């Protein structure tokens, strides 16, 4: 009974941490995983009193993993709140940003949050149903992953082409006559993709060192710069006029319910693909899912996007036990911390069942907490000193980058931020920055 209670306790702690990482846009769950990995020895020591109750050191490490995984799942629920409320754009940019922002500008910020929570929770339930089918498809007897590995190069190239080819941004700086703006938009997307790729190739050659002797992952400043700081800086610079928010749960008629279920399913399948294929993120999964889905209404996009995110966070854990590979920072830390036996039979490994409890309990808790926090945000939106919060978040990222990767890491962060600002400023999708991983991986498979 005690192990189960401890799993739930660490899960609740993780969910609460996930609220913090989710609400602070630049602070990613991978950073938390990284810090915990560095501190795992100290954490085990501080929980050594549990040894008297028959709890082993290995189980404490499993509890740290439960904490990390709960944080990651809670993060995917709560990150919609800052992207809706903090990343709110001014009118000029409204077309190029996420649909949640435009709902905020209509006074329906809470509805955006509620739809997102619904998409995420739907994905948890759908993924749970797919647990065994996916296990049999990816692992024995169908071994889909082995087949996929053989054609991985072509899959990655196809995904890259799809990402760039479906870019809809129009850039009219160099000519307004159609189809010039669309063509320039696509060319610019290609440019961002390749610039990120070259950046990725170079940074893997640069030695980074932590001034306090921590492990130094070069991707940390790079990803924080490409995807975290640009949003924060843009939020600082734009001063949107936000109307009074209406706090009302979304109304779902029969047709919308069916459509939402379809969005959850396609989004989840997109997320599952992301959890299997290396080098692509939820953003790519969303593009795949949206193309498969064929509908692009604001509300359905929010549901699909959230489903992709959460399904990916869910399935990276499961996939870790099937193909024995980590596809996220959280699972990378988990693989370092605990034993990950391959799931080959009908019965799942004990460690996976602990993490599944964390995913299910954490997901359910996160659903209700997201609605609660979303409501609080919508009500007290005007009273929060956002500029200060954002400045503090940027400072925190800079400090963490310095502590983990030193002065060279700061330089990488600055250059990554400049590259990350390109899609934000020119209106193309930010997922093209994933060239940072995709191009080096494609070169590896060549």
């Amino acid at each position, binding site marked *: 009974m005690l192990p189960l209670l401890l799993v739930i306790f660490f899960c609740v702690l993780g969910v609460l941490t996930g609220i913090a990482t989710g609400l602070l846009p630049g602070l990613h769950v991978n950073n938390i995983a990284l810090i915990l990995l560095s501190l795992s020895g100290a954490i085990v020591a501080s929980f050594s009193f549990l040894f008297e109750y028959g709890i082993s050191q290995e189980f404490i490490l499993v509890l740290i993993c439960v904490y990390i995984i709960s944080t990651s799942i809670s993060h995917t629920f709560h990150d919609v709140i800052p992207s809706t409320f903090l990343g709110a754009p001014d009118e000029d940019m409204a077309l190029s940003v996420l649909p949640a922002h435009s709902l905020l500008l209509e006074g329906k910020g809470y509805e955006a949050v509620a739809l997102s929570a619904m998409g995420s929770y739907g994905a948890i339930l759908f993924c749970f149903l797919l647990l065994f089918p996916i296990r049999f498809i990816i692992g024995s007897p169908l071994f889909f992953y082995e087949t996929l590995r053989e054609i991985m190069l072509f899959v990655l190239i196809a995904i890259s082409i799809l990402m760039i080819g479906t870019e809809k941004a129009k850039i009219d700086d160099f000519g307004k006559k159609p189809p010039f703006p669309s063509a320039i938009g696509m060319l610019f997307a290609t440019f961002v993709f390749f610039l990120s790729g*070259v950046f990725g190739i170079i940074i893997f050659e*640069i030695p980074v060192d932590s001034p306090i002797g921590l492990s130094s992952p070069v991707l940390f400043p790079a990803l924080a710069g490409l995807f975290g700081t640009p949003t924060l800086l843009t939020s600082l*610079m734009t001063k949107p006029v936000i109307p009074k928010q209406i706090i009302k749960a979304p109304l779902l008629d029969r047709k919308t319910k069916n459509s939402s279920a379809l969005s959850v399913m396609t989004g989840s399948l997109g997320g599952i693909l992301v959890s299997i294929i290396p080098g692509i993120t939820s953003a790519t999964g969303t593009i795949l899912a949206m193309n498969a889905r064929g509908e692009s209404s604001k509300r359905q996009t929010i549901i699909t996007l959230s489903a992709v995110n959460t399904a990916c966070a869910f399935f990276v854990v499961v996939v870790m036990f099937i193909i024995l590979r980590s596809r996220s920072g959280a699972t990378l830390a988990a693989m370092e911390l605990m034993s990950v036996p391959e799931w080959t039979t009908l019965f799942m490994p004990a460690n996976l069942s602990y993490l599944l409890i964390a995913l299910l309990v954490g997901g359910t808790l996160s659903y209700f907490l997201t609605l609660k926090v979303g409501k609080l945000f919508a009500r007290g939106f005007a009273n929060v000193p956002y500029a200060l919060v954002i400045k503090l978040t940027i400072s925190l990222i800079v400090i963490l980058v310095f502590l983990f990767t030193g002065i060279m890491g700061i330089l990488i962060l600055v*250059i990554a931020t*400049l590259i990350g*600002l390109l899609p934000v400023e020119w209106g193309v999708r930010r997922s093209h920055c994933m060239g940072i991983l995709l191009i080096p991986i494609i070169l590896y498979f060549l």
Partner: protein
Amino acid sequence: MKLKHFSLLFSIGGVLLLYFLSELTTPPLIEIHEMPNYEGKQVTIEGLVIDHRLTKHGGQIITVGGENATATIFVEGNADLEYGDKIQATGEVQKYKDTWELVINDNRFVIILEKWQNLSMPLWQLAENPTKYLGLNVNVTGFIESVSNAYFYLVDIEQKHSLIVFYNLFENLTIYPGQKVSVSGKFTFDEEQFRYQLELCEEKHGIATQVTE
């Protein structure tokens, strides 16, 4: 200047800056005998694995040989190596008990450039510098001469050099004089007979036949 133009210009400039920095910060590739000139600095060396063993604390000590010099490499962790592999190692040069060592804190900085099986060389090359390869796995090409049940001689095309090859573990081989072969085995010195020899004593050793030109 608008932020969009600023970010375009400076992102390209930044990537170029990083490229030049990476060129500058990449440790220099030096000869093994130059190590004393680089005390406390990061360098890269290359050489053949002459010896490798694990320490009690989970580390690994590798000895590599280059042109007329050998170096000791201390690695935290375990690099999967075999005698005769050509490796590249990047780490800090340190002096330990009067010998120069390359200290590496991560086994990812030990890269196998070529497995010994792929490092094929003609017999004359081995004959010119036998001490360099002594005790290592080598892959030598030449022609077969004087076949017996347990050994044969490997000669070069001009019959200038000759090396005895013991192959007693490989009974099902069909070899005949004049055949061009590539033999992988351990290059040793027989003190009683006072001669160098090639021994096929492990499973990974073998004889591959080649088409005579």
